[in-house]
């Protein structure tokens, strides 16, 4: 890999429709790929997990950020993971968590997955390499 090609991990901690974090991150992600860099994964943490809810139904004249992100992730084969602790607290579950906690429904949108903070730790360890970066998109106060 040439020295000027970077690998980015994007951490989104702000929710859609209450912060601009998911849309800013999507703009950044598109720019990263356009410039020839790569994204190893997107990690949703805290309020950011709401981005992975398949139940979000914004008015038709507004951007559906879950779908916009989902399309981007699938088109470019970028994995995206929601932190399990953040997700369970906020009512974002996949089918296996639905069964485990005997919940009436699951609502994790494809292609998002649910996993532990270890995924973020792994990206952090990788970022000790010069050509790798972890970038945070917060919701702000």
């Amino acid at each position: 890999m040439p020295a000027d090609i970077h690998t980015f991990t994007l951490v989104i901690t702000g929710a859609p429709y209450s912060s601009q974090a998911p849309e800013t991150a999507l703009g950044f992600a598109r720019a990263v790929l356009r410039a020839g860099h790569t994204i190893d994964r997107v990690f949703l943490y805290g309020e950011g997990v709401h981005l992975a809810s398949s139940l979000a139904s914004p008015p038709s004249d507004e951007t559906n950020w879950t779908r916009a992100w989902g399309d981007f992730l699938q088109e470019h084969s970028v994995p995206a993971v929601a932190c399990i602790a953040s997700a369970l607290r906020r009512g974002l579950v996949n089918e296996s968590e639905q069964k485990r906690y005997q919940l009436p429904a699951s609502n994790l949108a494809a292609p998002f997955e649910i996993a532990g903070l270890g995924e973020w730790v792994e990206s952090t360890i990788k970022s000790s390499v010069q050509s790798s970066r972890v970038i945070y998109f917060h919701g702000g106060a």
Partner: protein
Amino acid sequence: MHTLIVIDQPPYGSWGGRESLDMAFSLAAFDQPVSLLFIDAGVLWLKQGQEPDGIYQKSVERNLAAASIFGVEALLAEATACHRFGLTDNNLINGVTRIENTGTTLQQYQHVVFSG
């Protein structure tokens, strides 16, 4: 690579700080060097004798007391913020290092994470 997690929000009223603390513990669990820095109203995390039962929350004091056991290397606090919130040697929890220059401290870490 040493990570510094920065907490700038008080312990009650927002979950941001708690989820930042989880990040610190998670790094420590994977044997990655990590320290915590409390700035602005975040220094209130470090006050002795927190009693949040009245708002149906668990005290964060116990979590922080366990930080060194779990492998968090340092608990740092901005000295000016401690002064502003009346935190002194008499009412800070044990093991806190007060720092005078936040900018210099931030530069000492390769990876700095602000709480969301």
